């Protein structure tokens, strides 16, 4: 199966709605991007006039994977690091340097050691900030946050 443009408007709506409801990322953020799909993975690509002309069968892919699994709604961990802090309104936590390093190496975080977090915070995918930038995302289950499995 070759990578192709996602044209199913319902699926596109579902992706935008997920990022809006889960993280508060406004839908207009995606206005300049095409969604591409390859199996259950969803990729982002800046819209350009020449994309239509590209012979899609010759493509290997695009770097920017947004969702590692469309159906399970697992965001690709590294892709989230592209968002800016002010674009994320909900389901975030902020960690210190040591916590960030340990988390990136795969160590789980305990919610009671987290000093700053968004007022809306629920089980599921949460974005992890260190200072002004995103170090990745985790899956929160009750009081524990595990590194997101959304491998690129």
């Amino acid at each position, binding site marked *: 199966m070759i990578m192709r443009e996602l044209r199913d408007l319902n699926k596109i709506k579902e992706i935008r709605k997920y990022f809006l409801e889960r993280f508060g990322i406004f839908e207009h953020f995606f206005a300049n991007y095409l969604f591409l799909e390859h199996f259950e993975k969803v990729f982002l*690509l800046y819209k350009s006039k020449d*994309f239509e002309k590209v012979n899609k069968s010759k493509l290997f892919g695009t770097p920017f994977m947004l969702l590692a699994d469309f159906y399970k709604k697992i965001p690709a961990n590294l892709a989230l690091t*592209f968002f800016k802090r002010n674009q994320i309104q909900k389901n975030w936590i902020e960690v210190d340097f040591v916590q960030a390093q340990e988390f990136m190496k795969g160590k789980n975080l305990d919610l009671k050691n987290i000093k700053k977090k968004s007022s809306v915070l629920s089980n599921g995918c949460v974005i992890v900030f260190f200072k002004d930038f995103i170090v990745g995302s985790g899956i929160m289950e009750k009081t524990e946050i595990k590194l997101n499995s959304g491998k690129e």
Partner: protein
Amino acid sequence: MVIRVSPNAQGLIAKSFLKKFEPILGKESKTFFESLTWFLPKTIRVNTLKASEQSIVRFLQNSNSKFEKIEFLDHAFFVSSNFEVISKSLEHELGLIQIMSASAMIPVIALDPKVNETVLDLTAAPGNKTIMLAQFMGNQGLLIANESDEVRLKRMRIHLLKNGVTNCLLTHQDGIQFDVGLKFDKILLDAPCSSDGEINKTINQLKDWSQEKVIKFQELQKQLMVHAFDLLKPGGELVYSTCTFSPEENEDIVQFLLDSKKDAHTVSIKLKGLKGTLPLEQYNGKRYSFEVRNCLRIWPYKHNLEGFFVGKIKKSE
């Protein structure tokens, strides 16, 4: 920036390499050979797709590094102390800074891609210049990064993702037959080469340097160069670069293109404050045409930077 010089440089280098470059550089050859064991200053670049220059300056200050802005490059710094801290930092891990040599940034400056152009990086892995191309394009337009080695291509995908590149498509093709049904405004051909210019990394390789390897690369480079030129739109521009000192892989390749394509012309490359970059005028009894003089050579012994060759070519309208 302070550099250390090894006194017995010539003992570390293949005799055939010394024999080749002595007549090319004459009086300067001794300093050139010595320079091949220098420790050159490390350099970093702000990834403007993800971080501001201000925030990275703050980070450098906090890491207690000695750093200095590179005069001829925007968003780039020489770092002369505490480099380990920087290379192992979260900022690097998260793609807020790139670690790449100053010379390696020059081909992208020369190509100068713009927002909304259609750009090809024909031999792209590991992707450092691809990231820089995306920065120049403001992550807009269409960037295609091609690489023939699948393992390197897969690694490059992660590298580009980590660095926040969103305007890029990847292809896995042999560059000499590359085709996706498009012609390009700008093309970077940062060619596979014998890599002797990357002296910080390859002093050991200079022991086993061989002219046969140079000639093998030259054949591939000629084919890549002609095909890259054919992929340009009329009025489009191509930058050819290598990190080798051998004229067979540099001036010879530009001359070969000029001789093969009547609509190919070189364009001069402007870099503020970097002098003494003229390419060779002749080699092996052959005089290069005047147009080749527009190309640029970086020498460690003159510029305190890794060896590089950069040529810019325009296709007539």
